């Protein structure tokens, strides 16, 4: 290969490597943010619904509570209604507890996004630092050598970044998860 072609080949590899790396990671950022948004929307919707339901259930018990405070005795129907409301409130509270776990999942997704963004910033920093070493008067051989070092440094950083970005949260809804006893 001629020197010109070697230089061209290095430049091409570096540019496409940086572009691929950037695009892959930014696509993952987008995916994680969309997933975070889905979980947040569902959490707020479910928490609001259960809060209102608990509020209505508690309100509907007020008449009976007032009767008791006034020294009255609830009828059998009123007792049965209170028992039903009690069970309903327990269900709404359980549903709210399941929904409140959105914080744990979205926190993990956000943490992953932050690590990725930090990694990308460091990646671009490395590119910039090596670029600063290049002097306009450099010969082709020096440039080829530098491009080789940059590519190697970026490849290592890319691998290191991938190693800390395992996806542990696949949930897109706040339905209770599977249980398996071994």
């Amino acid at each position, binding site marked *: 290969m001629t020197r010109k072609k070697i230089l061209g080949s290095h430049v091409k590899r570096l540019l496409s490597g940086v572009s691929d790396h950037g695009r892959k990671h930014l696509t993952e950022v987008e995916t994680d943010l969309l997933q975070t948004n889905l979980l947040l929307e569902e959490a707020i919707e479910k928490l609001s619904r259960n809060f209102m339901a608990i509020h209505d259930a508690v309100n509907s018990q007020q008449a009976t509570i007032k009767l008791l405070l006034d020294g009255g005795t609830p009828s059998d129907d009123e007792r049965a209604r209170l028992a039903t409301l009690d069970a309903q409130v327990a269900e709404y509270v359980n549903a709210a*507890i*399941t929904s409140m776990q959105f914080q*744990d*999942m979205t926190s993990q997704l956000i943490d992953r996004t932050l690590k990725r963004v930090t990694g990308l910033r460091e990646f671009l920093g490395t590119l910039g630092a090596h670029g600063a070493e290049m002097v306009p008067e450099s010969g082709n051989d020096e440039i080829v050598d530098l491009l080789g070092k940059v590519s190697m440094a970026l490849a290592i950083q890319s691998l290191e970044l991938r190693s800390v970005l395992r996806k542990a949260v*696949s949930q897109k809804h706040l339905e209770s*998860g599977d249980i*398996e*006893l071994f």
Partner: protein
Amino acid sequence: MAKTILAVDDSSSLRQMVAFSLKAAGYQVVEAVDGQDGLEKAKLQTVDLVLTDQNMPRMDGLQLIALLRELPTYQKVPILMLTTESSDEMKAKGRAAGANGWLVKPFDPQRLIEVVKKVIG
């Protein structure tokens, strides 16, 4: 006497909800903020059940389980994972480390209590 459960998770909101659910069912709950803290608390007091997350700083769930199983007092204590992880690969690792069950987050309090009752009564 109420049975004691060690709940290990680096998310304070998650620990709060596990503790709320289990205490409402009559269990005592000891909380730990990560695997290292969980191991130290497990050594101070032998509990009836360990419920642990997987992804935590300092020491993850699998490491915690492996170390607990090395302790004579924790050979037979049931250990359940409560984690966002759901892959068969991770479940196999959990089982190999010594876990007795795998619960995928988010948990439903009623189902959690049913599983705990099934395991320790």
